């Protein structure tokens, strides 16, 4: 097999890696300037503003179409979240009850291993 210096495919990989490093270093240097921060943040601010205006417009449009608004969907999501949380609590309570041996609803939780493990001796095998 050819050594890496003479292998065009290995050379391609190396060139690609070097190009990546070079481009990243160049871009990082440019991005470290205050001018970059100023321009980037101005652009982000404008995008966020446009996004908000678009959101408000959509809400009015949905209302005129007699469709649920975003706020109503968020309210529904909050109610769903409340139901999910309550279900999780009920499930946890049932599991706790079963593992304590007092329950009959559903299968019992698998037994937990004893908390007796010790670290292996320095020269010993990991258990």
């Amino acid at each position: 097999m050819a050594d890496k210096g003479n292998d065009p495919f290995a050379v391609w990989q190396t060139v690609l890696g070097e190009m990546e490093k070079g481009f990243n270093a160049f871009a990082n240097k440019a991005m470290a300037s205050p001018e970059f921060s100023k321009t980037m943040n101005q652009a982000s601010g404008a995008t966020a503003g446009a996004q908000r205006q678009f959101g408000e417009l959509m809400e009015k449009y949905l209302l005129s179409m007699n469709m649920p608004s975003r706020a109503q969907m968020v309210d529904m999501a909050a109610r769903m979240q409340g139901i999910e949380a309550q279900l999780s609590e009920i499930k946890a309570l049932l599991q706790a009850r079963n593992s304590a041996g007092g329950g009959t609803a559903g299968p019992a939780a698998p037994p937990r291993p004893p908390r007796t493990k010790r670290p292996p001796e320095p020269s010993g095998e990991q258990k």
Partner: protein
Amino acid sequence: MNAAAALDLASIPERIQQEVQRAIQRSIKGVEYFSSSGPTLGVTPKDVLSARGTMNLYHYRPLADEVYRVPILIVMATTNRGYILDMVPGQSFIEFLLRRGYDVYMLDWTAPRPEEKSLRMEDYVLDFVPHCVRLVQEDSGETDLSVIGYCFGGVLSLLYGSIFHDGPMKNLICFTTPIDFRKMELFSNFSDRRYFDVDGLVDSVGNVPPEMILSSFEMLRPGSRAVSQVQLWDNIWNDEYVKSYRMFDRWATDTLPLAGDYFRAITKDLMWDNKLFNGTMSVGGHTCDLAGIKVPILHAVAEHDHIVPYDAARHLIPMVGSADKEEVILKGGHVSVVAGANAIKRLWPKLDSWLGGRST
């Protein structure tokens, strides 16, 4: 030199044949790539102990006949999903810990809902983390626990530990955790207080969208995404490479939004005022003095971390008050140090040897 040149000439037909075969394989595998989903991630069996909006607490089912007395609570970074630590069997940090006899819990995050935009740093440090600690205590029946925090999960763990320094945290392990936020130079420049209107942004969008978080990460290495796609095409004949690419790419692009007020606090307190490093950080009126942390602590940092450079992370060990403290610098980047082939060889065994003796 002549002999080497002759050897190269002799190998050219073989090399060309290999490349032709790979080109054919690329076409076949390329079609497969676009017509199939990647490997299923995060499959280690677990139970959800608590789910409250953006917060989830999992308990992983034990895989050993006996476990260490002290359970582990992993606190995941709020920007990313916890399955980076549970990729696929054989490449899962969680599975590794379970097989080594640890009882593992994870505080993981889902996207905060619009109504959770008002979650503050106080909610994370004084509610979510302590709530999960209590549940781990109840579920395991043990008072003590070890905490592992990854990246910003490490910051949350430190803030928690500096406030609740009388317990029950017995050991603390931080992975790639920033302390001096000025040394995250590009992030620091992106959020320059003269130009970055964090209040305007949060008031406009509520939760900070994941695209914005992802672009800020990708801007740290702007050429890498394009190059990684070229490399993927080069290696698409290689199933292992493709599997690994898909796992990490899926995780990296599965970025979470950040709750608006929480993002506001991170920007103002950490990025602008560098309060954790300066010792002026407080959460909900509680002073967060790292010197108050006295438990055994291990900080694992990556040699080539472009997100949390070593200069940003190196102050942790000198600043904590623990007598038993250690920093390890491992080869790898911000992600590869905790997951992937490098982590299997380096970080995981180191963590096991450090934590085992402290978990009884």
